[in-house]
């Protein structure tokens, strides 16, 4: 089961640029001992609001979702690394729990 989920928003680039950025990200993940389970592309779309990052105003971005298993100790340094990457607009790491149908809802 995936332990963490990285919702990555990359700068709107051409295909080779995006693939290079993704490759870099996954390689850093694997270097730190994470096991990448799944990589989903949620498409390139207009950002919900203007995001100012690395001295650039971004209007469009490509959304990716990376599921991975990792030790919790690597997360802070990983996030730090991702914030410094110029091509990454917004990285967010979330814990992933599969407890959807755990209990009765609404008492019915």
């Amino acid at each position, binding site marked *: 089961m995936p332990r963490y989920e990285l*919702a990555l*928003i990359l700068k709107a680039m051409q295909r080779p640029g995006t693939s290079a950025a993704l490759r870099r990200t996954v390689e850093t993940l694997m270097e730190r001992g994470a096991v990448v389970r799944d990589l989903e592309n*949620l498409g390139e779309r207009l*950002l*919900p*609001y203007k*995001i100012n990052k690395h001295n650039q105003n971004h209007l469009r*971005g490509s*959304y990716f*979702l990376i599921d991975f298993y990792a030790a919790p100790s690597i997360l802070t340094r990983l996030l730090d690394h991702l914030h410094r990457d110029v091509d990454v*607009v*917004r990285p*967010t790491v*979330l814990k992933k729990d599969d407890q*959807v*149908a755990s209990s009765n*809802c*609404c*008492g*019915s």
Partner: protein
Amino acid sequence: MLVLRGFQRITSVLLQQGNTSLRSLTTTSNVVQHNEDMLIKMENPYKEPQKGCLLCNVSVDFKNTQLLSQFISPYTGRIYGRHITRLCSRKQKEVAKAIKKSHAMGFMSVTHKHPEFMKDPHVCGKHLE
């Protein structure tokens, strides 16, 4: 003395009518004591199945911005309260948390509703239609 006599009369009556009426006497005094028309204890046969809230069996996710956009105002992007969405407390909390999460992660707009989702069915409140 009088009390004793009354008691004796009641007991003799009970013995004549049998054991069934004894139950009704001891429980309520409003019940008419007939042998055939005894109240049968059963669940309310006209009971309706309990209706859950809208999102009873639906999982709420921060990626599902279309679903989340149904619970925000199209003009200001504010999250509707429980008295408007009519969700149960658990689901309302989940929806609110998911909306705030997607705001922070850059998935959903904060100040308005995405124009793509404007034509979605109105799920919250009747006066907004």
